[in-house]
């Protein structure tokens, strides 16, 4: 018997809910992200993006529902898949006094990278870290720190990469450079990328799909081009404002 079983989604959330007392941070959201896709998670402050990311990475325990990564339930089997994931956020730091090389070496060993020195040399070349590879991480500029954080996130060549505002506070040139690198990484490794960002141009450029959240719920979920068409807008920033101000795409379609 030859049955083609489709691979599990790279990330799957099923009625995922997180409550903090009376406050509902994430309210029964469901989505499935196929392998090799780049998905943007958009929403205003307090929409539930960071909590959702926290639950995907098993940093936050869901109140109900489940989340799985590469077919593994993160509440039960996180350690079966954590070595195939990684994460970058400007709100999480690397130890400041350690040099870039030392930090990458520590994380390389934590992730079980076989030839750590070789991998670091490759990342240093790819991400242009050579000039400051032996400098303390705390003494780097914002742009350099972001490149180092990205190097740490790529140290294990993850199948699933989760990025929380990867280009926040970067100048346009550095931000563009980072986006280009992410595009190349996805193409080369067929990696799945989930990206939370407030930068709509970035999301439009990188993402195949956009999930829009508001007050813990998913209020829209589609390809960027389809969202633009449905909302009758020229860019995602205008779509974002429509969503933030309570005008859904369906309402807009009905009105027209």
């Amino acid at each position, binding site marked *: 018997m030859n049955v083609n079983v489709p691979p599990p989604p790279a990330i799957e959330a099923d009625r995922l809910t997180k409550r903090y007392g009376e406050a509902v*941070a994430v309210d029964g959201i469901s989505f499935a992200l196929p392998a090799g896709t780049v998905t943007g998670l958009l929403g205003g402050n307090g929409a539930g993006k960071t909590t959702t990311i926290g639950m995907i990475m098993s940093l*936050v325990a869901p109140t109900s529902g489940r989340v799985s990564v590469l077919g593994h339930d993160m509440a039960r089997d996180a350690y079966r898949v954590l070595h195939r994931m990684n*994460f970058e*956020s400007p709100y999480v730091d690397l130890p400041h006094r350690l040099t870039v090389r030392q930090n990458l070496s520590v*994380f390389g060993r934590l992730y*079980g990278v076989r030839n750590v020195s070789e991998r670091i040399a490759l990342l240093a070349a790819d991400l242009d870290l050579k000039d400051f590879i032996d400098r303390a991480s705390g003494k780097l500029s914002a742009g350099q720190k972001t490149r180092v954080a990205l190097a740490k996130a790529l140290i294990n060549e993850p199948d699933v990469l989760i990025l929380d505002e990867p280009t926040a506070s970067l100048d346009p040139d550095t931000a563009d450079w980072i986006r280009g690198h992410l595009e190349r990484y996805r193409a080369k490794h067929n990696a799945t990328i989930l990206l939370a960002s407030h930068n709509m141009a970035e999301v439009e450029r990188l993402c195949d799909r956009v999930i829009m959240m508001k007050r813990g719920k998913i209020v829209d979920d589609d390809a960027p081009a389809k969202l633009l068409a449905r909302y009758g807008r020229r860019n995602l920033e205008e779509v974002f404002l429509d969503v933030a101000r309570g005008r859904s795409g369906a309402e807009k379609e009905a009105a027209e």
Partner: protein
Amino acid sequence: MIATSPSFSFARIFAMVMRHWYLLRSSWPRLLELIYWPLVQMVMWGFLQSFMAKQTGALAMAAGTFLAAVLLWDILFRGQLGFSFSFLEEMWSRNLANLMISPLRPVEFVLSMIAMSVIRLIIGVVPVTFLAMYFFGFNLWGLGIALGAFFANLLLTSWAIGLICAGLVLRNGMGAEGLTWSIMFLFLPLTCVYYPVATLPVWLQPVSWMLPPTAVFEGMRSLVLENTFRADLMLWSFGLNVIWIALAGWAFMRLMQSSKRAGSLLSVGE
């Protein structure tokens, strides 16, 4: 891509030890801090012991145990601080989330902190024991094999307390950091570091005996004053330590689960 990840890895423990070793090596204030307090304590108690040794009677006898007491107390206190500091460094540098989403298992994380506790202790206390020998003629190493039993029991207690402190900081954030510095001082009067258990009120003595270091300090006095090694006390202390470590491990895991439920791992260091 990394294909597999073993459920236990010495390489991951080694990576964490290297992380802290790099930090220690790069920061002379951190190295100085390791030796500063044990040295100050040793000097102060050394002079006090010298002064009291010139008196007569029970006071002079009690004074003979001061330096041993203070050096053993430092093993307990520094062992706990060494453990807790490794944890706090992750909080201070906002690196904990990076570790928590890595393949590093909680037991490996704990074992790396234990290893660092021993390394910090060796850097901080061992040189001071030689200085005590040079300046005050007190040879802690002269306690012989008993020293190994004292050392092991005190370290086990220090890790149990360090584990509970780490769990509380994990769950409650940096607001609980103060506990790390002060919790051991609760043990100072109760474990009878400088006086026999019989000094305590009768109702407090059973509480004192439930603390593993109490038997160590009683055993030390027995050895220094009566030249008798009390194996029974060491076994009692070890038995209590097994229970304490098990309870502390359980508490740490519960506090970690609780912090995941509370979402506090997302805001560590704040």
